[in-house]
């Protein structure tokens, strides 16, 4: 983001209260920037300019009259286009979804953000139904990585990752079924949090997998994610999966200190996978050393079933997705993008016994993780095997066989953040995960925020470039 604009959500909130800038000016500036980068970055699938400017004007008026709804008031944000919004259709970036889906109401998380005064600039790009792969042949729009548009921004919350990194919004909502918040956060050099399953309502979200889907914040900093989580967290009678756990004051818990905290390091699988790039391993090791110097105790621990988590997650995800999509796959398969259709068809091959066995394995892994975490406060592991891959060389079929460091945390439902911890030799961001105990997002955020006070990876921003579409 340029020097004349705030660099983070928290900073923007301060500027608005100091009258250094108005929400209306901020909104119009970012809308113009977002539109100017659509050809190169393509982060948005729809702009909601009219309602955004109205919301920004209202925020300015309220702040001027002493009505303060909290730090999100007047802040431009974006919503992944898999969540229902009243001012724009929801497409899930697919030709299959009924245009009436969501019936133009706000998803619970979106409603809460609006009530907190956030200004929604539009709907953000995603991989089709949160599972597809960018594919020129499908004709569906896709976002590009602001650090290098020839590279992928990660998915499926690709637009949210790209828009935050490019400085087009101060924060946004993503969804995460196997890493769809944390992957784009790592590839785009921003912070993203998949909360505990049940912490944030999924009402108004097009489902991919009922028991693995999570909604969470993506922003420049961990502090910004904390401010967003504060607003969207909580029980919701419209989502039976939400929990009645108390929601703590997340920002108040960001002490900047990690003194005395115990960090678990699952060396096996997460640090010794042959596919893990050396520069990612080094970046995460450096981060562990930084945290150790800041006062944490590192403890190696073992999760023997970690490598098997991926198949349990995959069987559950694709079985649940197939149940949701089966009729459309029968009636109009040609409307799906090729990769999306094939993923969903894969779900047809699993038997009911496979699904039950996957759920039983899930129980085993959950118990194993809970046991391992009894003696630590958080775990730290790499987010991805490497930095963002190139579009041209990306092969979605080969991904099926690669280890995943993210999907296990969907399987066990624990909170997991990805934050920037370095850059590759090609100048692309590297991320690491901080994983907490159930409903203890507070400690995850505390560790992440303290790390960001020690380092500046999250402050680096890409120089926006424009590439010809045919290069992608």
């Amino acid at each position: 983001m340029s020097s004349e604009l705030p660099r983070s959500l928290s900073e923007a909130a301060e500027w608005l209260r100091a009258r250094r800038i108005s929400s209306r000016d901020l909104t119009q500036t970012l809308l113009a920037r977002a539109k100017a980068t659509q050809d190169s970055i393509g982060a948005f699938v729809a702009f909601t300019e009219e309602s955004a400017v109205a919301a920004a004007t209202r925020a300015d008026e309220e702040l001027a009259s002493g009505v303060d709804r909290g730090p999100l008031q007047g802040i431009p944000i974006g919503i992944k286009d898999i969540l229902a919004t009243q001012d724009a259709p929801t497409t899930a970036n697919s030709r299959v979804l009924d245009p009436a889906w969501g019936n133009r109401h706000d998803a619970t998380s979106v409603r809460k953000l609006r009530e907190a005064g956030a200004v929604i600039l539009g709907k953000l790009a995603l991989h089709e139904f949160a599972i597809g792969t960018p594919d020129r042949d499908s004709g569906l729009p896709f976002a590009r990585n602001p650090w290098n548009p020839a590279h992928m921004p990660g998915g499926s919350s690709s637009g949210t990752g790209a828009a935050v990194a490019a400085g087009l919004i101060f924060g946004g909502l993503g969804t995460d079924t196997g890493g769809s918040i944390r992957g784009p956060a790592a590839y785009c050099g921003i912070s993203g949090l998949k909360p505990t399953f049940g912490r944030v309502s999924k009402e108004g979200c097009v489902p991919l997998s009922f028991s693995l889907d999570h909604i969470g914040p993506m922003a420049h900093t961990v502090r910004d994610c904390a401010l967003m989580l504060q607003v969207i967290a909580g029980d919701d009678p419209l989502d039976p999966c939400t929990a009645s756990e108390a929601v703590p004051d997340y920002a108040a818990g960001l002490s900047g200190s990690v003194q005395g905290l115990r960090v678990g390091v699952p060396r096996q699988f997460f640090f010794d996978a042959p596919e893990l790039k050396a520069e990612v391993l080094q970046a995460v090791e450096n981060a562990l050393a930084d945290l150790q110097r800041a006062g944490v105790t590192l403890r190696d621990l073992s999760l023997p079933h970690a490598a098997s988590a991926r198949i349990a997650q995959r069987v559950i995800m694709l079985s649940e997705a197939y149940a949701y999509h089966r009729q459309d796959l029968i009636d109009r398969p040609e409307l799906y993008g090729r990769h999306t259709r094939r993923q969903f068809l894969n779900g047809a091959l699993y038997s009911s016994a496979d699904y039950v066995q996957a759920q039983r394995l899930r129980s085993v892994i959950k118990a194993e993780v809970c046991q391992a975490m009894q003696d630590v406060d958080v775990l730290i592991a790499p987010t991805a095997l490497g930095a963002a891959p190139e579009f041209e060389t990306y092969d979605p079929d080969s991904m099926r066989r690669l280890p995943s460091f993210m999907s296990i945390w969907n399987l066990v439902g624990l909170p997991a953040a990805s934050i920037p911890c370095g850059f590759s030799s090609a100048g692309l961001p590297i991320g690491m995960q901080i994983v907490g105990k159930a409903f203890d997002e507070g400690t995850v955020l505390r560790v992440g925020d303290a790390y960001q006070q020690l380092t500046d990876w999250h402050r680096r921003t890409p120089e926006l470039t424009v590439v010809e579409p045919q290069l992608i």
Partner: protein
Amino acid sequence: MSETVSSEIRANVDAVVRRDGLRLSADDYDWLIKVAADLHDDLQPLRAEELRYTEMSVLFSAR
């Protein structure tokens, strides 16, 4: 892969396609056959002995 196994895999995929009334392009069918051929190996962790006495929750909770 032996011809017998290959025919068995093909028959299994054909049965799934018939069961659900799926309409597959030739490319999608070939892709599904390829995935099905890997299925036995892929699903090995789900056959583990230790799962024999493990329960599953109907409604997942992180607690």
